[in-house]
């Protein structure tokens, strides 16, 4: 048997959220990834985020492409419908799912190979259409599942495990998402749960295209000296521009860092993003400035993380299309089928 079911033990001591769910209820099957893989930490953050947001698990749809990263939706939110689609095409499938039912929360999980190579086109178009979703790329700079080839997000000059130097310019998905019109853009690191979990929470609550580029080291193929996606490299070069707390009407604020200057942003659904500024000059409401800042820091070899841009009043694809409030998959004959009388009129117009 290749599938391992997680034993459903009863833990009377486990804390429940307001819906009566424990953290366990948001878990999935046991991960089959390598021990220490960054992707597993991201799954844990997703579980934590949804638990803290007190979302009913079945109201989330999780979709992915193909890769180690794309396998992870099986390892979290076992009570949510999931869809492991084809390589690089998660964005279109998620878009279709979203068109069918605007009432679910859509979480897309992808890899850097999945999104920056084969799926770059679909990544771009989902962003520019403003599909209401949170799209996370678990970025390790390699193709993990096919055993360690460079991916398109590998930085120029970075070295493979076998010592080969990458000569191609790296694709920065954060920069692309900003240019393409994503209305929530963040970057984080799988090794920084405190930064990542609130970002995921905010992204899930955001209306519109939310994107998080999460650097997620591949311990198997890209965690050596000379790689710019290793744990050590990212820790050394990480420049967090802010720390985030998400305040929902239900979940109280949690502060675990030294107080400093903070900005509050109210999102569409009523949630409040409380941003604690770490880089004094950084303003997450300005797309152009964000791009400039990122490029300047990148040139210095720094990895800028945090909530990099948010438009709290963004709209989404459904708004642009003017679709009805009822999810399209709930409409029945009365709303969809014009009937025989309408057809008779059409016939009359075709004679």
């Amino acid at each position: 048997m290749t599938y391992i079911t997680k034993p459903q033990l009863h833990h009377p001591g486990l804390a429940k959220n307001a819906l009566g769910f424990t953290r366990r209820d948001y878990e999935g099957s046991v991960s089959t990834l390598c021990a220490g893989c960054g992707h597993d930490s991201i799954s844990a953050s997703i579980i934590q985020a949804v638990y803290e947001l007190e979302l009913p698990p079945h109201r989330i749809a999780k979709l992915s492409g193909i890769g180690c990263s794309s396998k992870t939706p099986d390892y979290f939110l076992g009570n949510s419908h999931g869809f492991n689609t084809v390589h690089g095409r998660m964005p279109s499938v998620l878009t279709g799912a979203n068109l069918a039912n605007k009432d679910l929360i859509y979480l897309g999980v992808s890899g850097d190979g999945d999104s920056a190579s084969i799926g770059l086109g679909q990544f771009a178009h989902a962003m520019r259409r403003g599909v209401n979703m949170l799209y996370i790329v678990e970025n390790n700079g390699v193709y993990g599942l096919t055993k360690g080839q460079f991916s398109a997000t590998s930085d120029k000059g970075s070295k493979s495990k076998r010592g080969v130097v990458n000569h191609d310019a790296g694709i920065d998905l954060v920069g692309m998402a900003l240019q393409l019109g994503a209305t929530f853009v963040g970057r984080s690191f799988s090794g920084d749960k405190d930064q990542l979990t609130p970002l995921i929470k905010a992204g899930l609550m955001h209306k519109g295209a939310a994107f998080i580029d999460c650097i997620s080291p591949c311990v198997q193929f890209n965690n050596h000296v000379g790689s710019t996606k290793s744990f050590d490299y990212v820790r050394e070069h990480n420049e967090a521009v802010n720390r985030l707390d998400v305040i929902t009407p239900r979940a109280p604020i949690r502060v675990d860092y030294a107080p400093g200057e903070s900005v509050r942003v109210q999102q569409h659904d009523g949630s409040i993003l409380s941003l604690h500024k770490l880089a004094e000059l950084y303003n997450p409401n300005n797309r152009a400035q964000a791009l400039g800042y990122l490029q300047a820091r990148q040139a210095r070899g720094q990895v800028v993380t945090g909530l990099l841009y948010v438009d709290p009043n963004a709209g989404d694809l459904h708004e642009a299309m003017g679709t009805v409030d009822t999810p399209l998959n709930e409409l029945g004959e009365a709303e969809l089928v014009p009937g025989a009388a309408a057809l008779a009129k059409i016939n009359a117009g075709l004679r």
Partner: protein
Amino acid sequence: MAERAKQPRVNDFVVKFANVNGSGSASANGMFARAIIRMGVPVAARNIFPSNIQGLPTWYEVRITEAGHLGRRGGVDLMVAMNPQTWDRDLAEIETGGVLFYDSTKPMPPTRFRDDITVVGVPLTALCNARYELPRERQLFKNIVYVGALAALLGIETSAVQELISEDFAGRQRLIDANFEALQMGYDYVGQNLKPLALQVRRADKVGDRIYVEGNAAAALGAVYGGATVCAWYPITPSTSLAEAFTGYCQDLRTDPETGQARYAILQAEDEIASIGVVVGAGWNGARAFTATSGPGVSLMTEFIGLSYFAEIPAVIFDVQRGGPSTGMPTRTQQADLIGAAYAGHGDTKHPMLLPADPGECFEMGALAFDLADRLQTTIFVMLDLDIGMNEWLTAPFQWDDARTLDRGKVMTHDELEAGRDFGRYLDVDGDGIPYRTYPGVHPTRGAYFTRGTSRNPYARYSEEGSVYVDNMQRLLRKFETAKAIVPAPVVRKAKRKTTDGVIYFGSTTGAMHEALEALEGQGRHLDALRVRGFPFADEVLEFIAAHARVFVVEQNRDAQLRTLIMNEGGVDPAKLVPVLHYDGTPITARFISGQIAQLMAIGSVIEAAE
């Protein structure tokens, strides 16, 4: 030049217009055809156009046919030669004794004509230059002037044309007046200078309540009635007008009257891969979704089609076929995607196909496809072609039974899950190979599953164990078996006499085939005929083949794709199936079919006699 005084040919001839693309001739030519329909005389009209917007030659062929033959006949009785570029080949196409109509403004040496045809010249350019100032007006009204002239020559009632002008330009009186004037100008010129032709249109009552519509529009309307809410597409001839028609019909019929909101979502995707991805995502999530494309698009979609097959997700693809392979003949017709669609995808895959013969069936099958996709939880292809899709056809009026409901197939509901009903996404509980599915978000703790293209067990859990995989693949075969009985059944047309010869055909070949059967019968050649309307083939198809000694398979591709499918799926002896193939990109004609079959039958009897 031949004498004009000949026996009149009433309501049975072919007129072909040779024009330059972008000259505005299309609407005038269309009016010509529709005026004849208004006189109660059936027409079969076809556009023959290049893959560009302006400047290249286009043709429009109108077959006037009181007998109601809707296929192409072949040959031209009256050529309206408006394109100097194609003059020589247009002239050559006229049947002996036929008529050439041309713009006689510039004198032409007699060597440019043929002496076995009648030549009718009307100085169209001179007439228009005298009346109109603006070059664009001169160009546009020239088309209406020749329609007026043709009306006088062929006995078409000007009131029928005027009626159409008034309807088409309703509310724009100045345009109506101007078009009336141009029409009259041509009509009067003929009245004063020429005699009517032997080719005549005479009022009849052979149209009945039939409607005149393009297959693409009909299929799009079928999708509306079939409850489709999500459409994702990428422009490609000849399918574009299907998505555009769907957009138009949705705006009219699917806008919430109170809020003005849309009960549909139409997305022009970045390519065909994204189009089918959106369809698969929407289908997975319980909406009825489709894409419209042509061969090149289907090629790009194949990975997703395989996913839809294996993960069992409803999807509908309208494949409006054009001439392949590659870019091939993008504005010509063929039935050459049959094998590609039937087996699209890597690994062992097969997909049901619906094969409409005319716009009436495009509507019916366009709606039915969505029920079948939900019932069979797989991709359903509706195989149109350019001939049906982009030409207006006379067809029986669309019909809808208001008691009909949308058949969503096997969907387990919240209440069933709540009551504790066992849910295994790929469990064959009914023995028909079709499992139950749940819509995402249905229940807080039951019914969720992980959809994947990877092998899995009946409870949707990843498994690459050989026996689990094989069981699942066998179940998919059972499901395909179930499909046999629910795709549209074939239609059989018995010969007047008992015969051991049969013929199988499908789709846009139908009109020409029926006419060919009549012609063959006139020669004493009798064939039973079977029209295939669905894949997988119903048992009747194989029974029909078994009941005949020889079966011709008539289709519009080089490689006899339907014949191959029949051999492959039915284990039929290839020697029994005689291919009759037409694939030059023009719609197949009755003359071609009857000629080929007559010849093959004659050879057959020579061989028999020698044996």
